[in-house]
C-alpha cells in the first residue's frame, strides 16, 4: 500500500545508514543538476530581472542534442568511439547547441521588448510563449515518445553499477554527473571573477544603466550571459538523460520549475546561492522520495519555496533589494 509516513512507520531497511547514504548520493547528483539549471535562471535574472520560462525548454533541447550525438555515434551499446570521448562529445555538442538556442531566444523574443520599453509583464508572457512553442516544436520534430539514452549499456554496464566506498554506494554515472557539474561551476566562477567579460557581467547585474554609461556593451553582456546560462542548461540536459536514462518534450517544464525554486532559495541573482540552493533542493527531493512519497515530492519542494518566501524572501545569499523610487 502507498503510505504517507510522516511520523514513525518506516520500513526496517529505511532506517539503515546504507540507505541514508544512498539517498545522500542521489540527492547530491540531482542537486548538481538543479544547481546547473539554477545558475542559468539566476544569472539572467540578475542582469535583466527577467524570469526566463524558456530555460527549461533549452534544457530539454540540450538533452535531445545529447541523445542524437549518442545515436549518431552508434548508440550506447557499441559506440564507435571510446566512452570518454563519447561523453565529451555529447556534453560539448549539447552545450554549444543549447547556448546558441538561448542566444536566439534572447535575440528574437526578449530584445525587441527591451528596446520598446515594454511593460514588465510583456517579456514574461513572451517567455511563456517561447517555452510553449519549443515544447510543441519538439513534439512535432521528435514525436512525443520517450527517447532512451540507455546508459546501462555504456561500457558493458559498468558505469551504472554501484560500487562501495566504505558505507557509501556510488556509481560511476553519479560520479560523472557530480564531477562534471563541479567542474563547470568552477569554470563559471573563474569566468565571472577573473575575466573582463565576467567583470562586465557583475557590473551589469549591479546596475544595468550605470554599466551602460560606463561604456559596457550591455547587449554583448546579455548575449554572453544567455549563452553561458543556456550552455549550462544543455549540460544539465545531457546529465538528466544519462542519469534518468530518457528524455521527452515535456522534461524541461518540471525541472525548470524546481531549478527556479533552487535559485530563489539560494538568493536569486547570486551565483554561489544558485549552487547551494540547487544542492539543497536536490537533497530535499531525494530524502522526500526516499523516506516519504515520490508522488508528493514536488509538493515538498513547493512548501520549501513558500517557507523561504515568507521568512527570507531574498534567499540564503541574496541581498534584500531596496525599492528605488
Amino acid at each position, binding site marked *: 500500500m502507498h503510505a504517507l509516513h510522516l511520523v514513525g512507520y518506516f520500513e526496517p531497511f529505511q532506517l539503515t545508514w546504507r540507505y541514508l547514504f544512498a539517498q545522500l548520493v542521489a540527492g547530491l547528483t540531482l542537486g548538481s543538476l538543479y544547481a546547473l539549471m539554477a545558475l542559468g535562471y539566476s544569472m539572467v535574472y540578475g542582469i535583466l530581472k527577467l*524570469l526566463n520560462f524558456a530555460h527549461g525548454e533549452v534544457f530539454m533541447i540540450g538533452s535531445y542534442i545529447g541523445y542524437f550525438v549518442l545515436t549518431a555515434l552508434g548508440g550506447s551499446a557499441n559506440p564507435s568511439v571510446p566512452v570518454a570521448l563519447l561523453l565529451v562529445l555529447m556534453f560539448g555538442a549539447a552545450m554549444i547547441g543549447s547556448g546558441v538556442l538561448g542566444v536566439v531566444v534572447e535575440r528574437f*523574443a526578449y530584445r525587441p521588448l527591451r528596446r520598446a520599453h*515594454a*511593460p514588465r*509583464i510583456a517579456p514574461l508572457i513572451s517567455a*511563456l510563449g517561447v*517555452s510553449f512553442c519549443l515544447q510543441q516544436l519538439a513534439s512535432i520534430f521528435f514525436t512525443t515518445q520517450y527517447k532512451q539514452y540507455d546508459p546501462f549499456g555504456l561500457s558493458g554496464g559498468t558505469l551504472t553499477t554501484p560500487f562501495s566506498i566504505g558505507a557509501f554506494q556510488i556509481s560511476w554515472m553519479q560520479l560523472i554527473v557530480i564531477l562534471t557539474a563541479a567542474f563547470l561551476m568552477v569554470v563559471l566562477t573563474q569566468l565571472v571573477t577573473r575575466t573582463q567579460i565576467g567583470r562586465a557581467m557583475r557590473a551589469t547585474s549591479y546596475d544595468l544603466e550605470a554599466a551602460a554609461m560606463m561604456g559596457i556593451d550591455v547587449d554583448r553582456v546579455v548575449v554572453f550571459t544567455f549563452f553561458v546560462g543556456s550552455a549550462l542548461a544543455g549540460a544539465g540536459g545531457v546529465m538528466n538523460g544519462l542519469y534518468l536514462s530518457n528524455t521527452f518534450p515535456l522534461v524541461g517544464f518540471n525541472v525548470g520549475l524546481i531549478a527556479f525554486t533552487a535559485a530563489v532559495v539560494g538568493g536569486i541573482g547570486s551565483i554561489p546561492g544558485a549552487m547551494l540552493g540547487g544542492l539543497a533542493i536536490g537533497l530535499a527531493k531525494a530524502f522526500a522520495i526516499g523516506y516519504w512519497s515520490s508522488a508528493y515530492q514536488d509538493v515538498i519542494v513547493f512548501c520549501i519555496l513558500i517557507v523561504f518566501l515568507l521568512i527570507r*524572501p531574498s534567499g540564503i545569499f541574496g541581498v534584500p533589494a531596496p525599492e528605488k523610487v
Partner: protein
Amino acid sequence: MTVSDLPETPRAPEPGIGVDEWVARSAERILGRGGLAGQVQRRLEQVPAPLRFASAAGLAALIPVITSDDYLIRVATVTAVYCLLALGLNVAVGFAGLLDLGYIAYYGFGAYGYAMLSSSKFGVHWQAWASIPVVVCAAIALGFLLALPSRRLIGDYLAIVTLFFGQIFYILVTQGYRVSLLGLNKDLGLRSASWDVTGGPNGIANVDGFRAFGGTAQSDRAYFYIALVAVVVVFAALHLANRSRTGRAWRALHDDALAAQVMSMPINWLKLLAVGVGAAAGALAGTINAALLQGAFPDDYNTMVLITIYAIVILGGAGSLTGAVLGAILVNIGLEALRPGTEFSDWTANGRGLFYVTILLVALAKLRPWRRLSAVVAGTIAFGVVLHAIVGAVWPRGVHGLILNATGQFDHGGWIGWALRHWLVLPAGTYQDGSYKAFNYLLCLLIALVLCLTLVRGWRRDLLLVPTLWLAAFVYETRLVEEGSGATRFLLLGAALIVVMAARPQGLLGRPRVEIV
C-alpha cells in the same frame, strides 16, 4: 475666403509645464484616428454602452434559434465558458496587473467541487442553486488563501508561486484517489486504509446536470443559455466594478503599486480582492464545464488550457472586457477550425481557409500602401507558379502530390486544391510514412526565415516575404496540417503570444500603457 472660414480641426491644447504629455494628448490621439476604422469607432461610441452590450448578448442568444446543429451549439457553449474564464483572468492580469499562473486551479476547483457535491461519487446530489454558490464561495476563500502568502510578492515571484499552485492542484487531483491520514489509518482504527476523493487520473464521471426547481438541464441548448447568462452577468458585474472606486484602485495598482500605496490605497487587500473575484469567475466556469461534460477530468485543467486562456486575454487586450470576449471567440473558433474532422474544419477546408485568410488579413493590415501589398501578393503567386513549372519540367513526379481534405483523406481537393497543387510543389507520396523527415528541415528553414524577417527592413523585407509566405503555405500543407489535432494548434497559440507581445503588447482592444521612465 479668410482663414477663420476654414473648418476647424479638433486639437487638444499644447501640453504645458507640469502636464504629462501623453495624458494631455490622449484626446488628440483618439480623435486623430482616421480612416474607416476611426469612423466606425466613433459611431460605435455614440451608442450607449448598455444598448451595445444588450444587442451583442441578444445576437448571441439567437445562435440556437438559427441553427439546430448540436456541434455548433456545443462550440458556442465552450466559447462562452472560455469567455467566463478570460473575464475572470482579466481581473487579475488586466485590471490589477498580477500575473496569476495558478488560475487554472480555480477552474479545476470549480469543476471538482461541483462534481463532488452533485454526483454519485459520494452519493451527494445537491441542487445547482445550492452547489454553485457553495463552490464559488469556497473558490473565493481558496483564492484569498493562496494569495495570502504571495501578496507581498511582485511580478515574477508571484508568477512562479502561482504556477506552482496550478501544478500542486494537478498533482493533488491525480493523486487524490488514495488519501489517508499520514498512512496511519489502520493505527487510528479506521476501517479503510485510504479514501478515493478525486478519482485520480480517471476523474469523476456521472456528474449530474444542473438541477433546480424540479428540472434538469440536459440539452446542449440549455447549457448554452446557462453559460450565456453567466457571461452576461459576470460581464455586467465586472463592467460596473471596473468603473467603481475599486476598479480605479486596481488600475492604479496596475500602473504603479508603490504610488498607489503612497496614495493610501490598501494594496494588499486590492490584490486579494482581484484574485478572489477572478477565482469566483473561474470556479463558475468550472461548474458549468463539469455539468456540460458530466464529469471532471484532470487533463481538462492542465497547463495547455492555462496557455489557451492567457492567449485569449493577451490577444483580446489585457484590461478590456470586450477584448476578453472577442479573444475567446477568435481563439476557440480558431482552435476548432484547426481540429480535423469537424464542421468548422469542413468549412475552412481543414483549417486551410483560416490559415490563408489570417495571413491575408495580417498582410492587409501591415502592408501599406496597396502597391506594396499587391506587389508582395503577386510576387508570391508568381514565385509559386514559376517554381512549380521548373520542378515540373525537371522532375515530373515532384508535382503530382495530393492534398489532405477535411475528412482526413487525400484527394485533388476541389478548386482550392487545384489552385494549391498548381502553386505549391507537392511531390507524389507527400504524406507517406517517413517523408515528413524531409519536411522537418523545411520547417526549420521556415522558422529561420521568419526570424530573419524581423531583422531586415524596407524593400529587403518585402523581397524576403515572398519566399517566406510560399514556404509557410508549403510547410503547412505538407507537415502541420496533419498534426492539426495536437501540436500545430498549440504551436500557433504559443507563437501568437510572442508575436502579440512584440508587435502590439496591448492586444486587439487594450489601451497602450504609458511607460514612465
